[in-house]
């Protein structure tokens, strides 16, 4: 009665075949990542010395280091976050916890999704029009980081809103029934239980903006600046733009230099991702309901 029939055996063979096809596709995905990383580490690794990281470029960027670009990227990303995170979180709290379900809310949500889909070069042109020209910030760190912030906003909003929505609605109703206001409920129950998720989203967003080139190249990042920025109205160098410049625009750059810059960018991005994965694991370890 429990002996396998021919039909069972055929089904089993077919299902194994499909499993292997899917496994192959998955392995195919990993391949490019491994090749890129391997190449970068092998060729860029030796370039990443302390001098390379902390010295100015010399001899028309064909020698010396990348310190201004390294520092510039950190400043741009940090300032972009300072602008986008408070605004994004506040907007997400409103949309998730306060907004009534009507056409206005729905259009705002639609607008946010569309904003997330806008190509970064279009954000760049908006940044030029709005921050560089209209507000008169000039091509500056301020204009560039505001442009990055606009680009980061929808992602911060969506990540935050999803973390808030992941807190069961029953918790809110229980608090309301005890006479808590919406804000008391948010502060005591909803936010403490979504803050890790929000942080994860924000960190992932940081790693994305760190690598962006288009939004900053017209608004504040420069080809070459012989000094470190003194105010937020100065221009700055940035890793992503620097990589583009030394790979394509400057003759005589040592062949391994671009690999070193690319490796540094990847290291920044991957360590951010690792941080966010760490958060998630920590979260899972402390399951709250």
């Amino acid at each position, binding site marked *: 009665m429990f002996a396998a029939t021919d039909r069972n055996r055929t089904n089993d063979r077919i299902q194994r075949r499909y499993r292997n096809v899917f496994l192959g596709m998955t392995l195919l995905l990993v391949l490019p990542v491994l090749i890129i990383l391997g190449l970068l580490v092998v060729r860029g690794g030796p370039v990443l010395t302390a001098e390379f990281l902390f010295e100015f470029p010399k001899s028309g960027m064909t020698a010396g280091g990348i310190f201004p670009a390294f520092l510039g990227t950190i400043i741009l990303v940090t300032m972009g976050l300072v602008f986008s995170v408070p605004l994004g979180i506040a907007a997400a709290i409103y949309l998730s916890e306060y907004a*009534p*379900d*009507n056409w206005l809310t729905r259009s705002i949500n639609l607008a946010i999704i569309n904003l997330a889909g806008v190509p970064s070069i279009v954000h760049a042109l908006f940044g030029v029009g709005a921050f560089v020209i209209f507000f008169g910030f000039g091509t500056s760190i301020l204009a560039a980081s505001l442009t990055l912030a606009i680009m980061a906003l929808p992602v911060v909003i969506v990540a935050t809103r999803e973390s808030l929505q992941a807190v069961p609605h*029953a*918790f*809110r*109703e*229980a*608090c*309301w*029934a*005890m*006479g*808590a*206001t*919406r804000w*008391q409920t948010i502060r*005591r*129950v909803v936010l*403490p*239980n979504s803050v890790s998720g929000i942080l994860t989203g924000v960190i992932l967003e940081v790693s994305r903006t760190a690598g962006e080139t288009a939004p900053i190249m017209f608004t504040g990042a420069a080809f070459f600046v012989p000094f470190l920025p003194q105010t937020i109205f100065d221009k700055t160098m940035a890793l992503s733009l620097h990589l583009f410049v030394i790979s394509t625009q400057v003759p005589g750059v040592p062949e391994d230099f671009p690999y070193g810059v690319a490796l540094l960018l990847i290291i920044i991005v991957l360590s951010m991702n690792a941080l966010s994965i760490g958060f998630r694991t920590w979260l899972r370890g402390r*399951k*709250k*309901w």
Partner: protein
Amino acid sequence: MNGSESILDVRDLSIAYGSKTVLSGVTLDVRENEILGIIGPAGAGKTSFLQAINRMDAFNASMKVTGTLNFLGRDVRAWRNAYALRRQIGVVFPLPVGLPLTVYDNVAFAPRLAGKRSRAELDEIVERCLRRAALWDEVKDRLDSLGSLLSGGQQQRLTIARALSQDPVLLMLDEFSIAVDPVTTMRIEDVLKELRQEMTIILVTNLVQQARRLADRTAFFLDGRMVELGSTESLFNGETLFPETRDYIEGRFG
């Protein structure tokens, strides 16, 4: 019979969500220190009825309530401070809701909202409420573990302790036994028998026999209206004039 003073007086209550009416023309009173049972099949409007009492419609823009609900002699919508109204009314939900706070903080939540800060006072409230909810012995050694990680039955008693921490005039239970085991159900029923000495209870239940065991009077809701309200005894002794009620009580539908 218990005191006949009415603490909640409902006149011609109707509730709609958008254009869909879920309850219409309900008129009833709830008397001090009684347990009022409300029975009826799913979709009869029982939960909406409870939500109208503590004005949860304020959190749901599509919920429209008409008619009057006099609680302690004042229309609930005339209470300028809906938060103060809700603090007088304890609510227990169908699914146990242990907030993701410590057991202690769960029970101290409402007292803290009311401005109580002294540790000694909060300690006293937490112990008293957990004792009355028959949960103290099980959690007294782990008051700082998460309330949301207790077992379902414990969470439901935690919810009751939390409701009691408000010192409510009225306790509303919405099908509290739906997700807890029979033993916990019986323990909670015992708790309710004790509590009726001090407060008024509205018990919405999906278990007809639970209403029979606990309620002084029972209302039968069906398809968005109240079919009848009478003493539990008469309802279950077959003195009802309404065939729907008899069919429901005898388990012929619902």
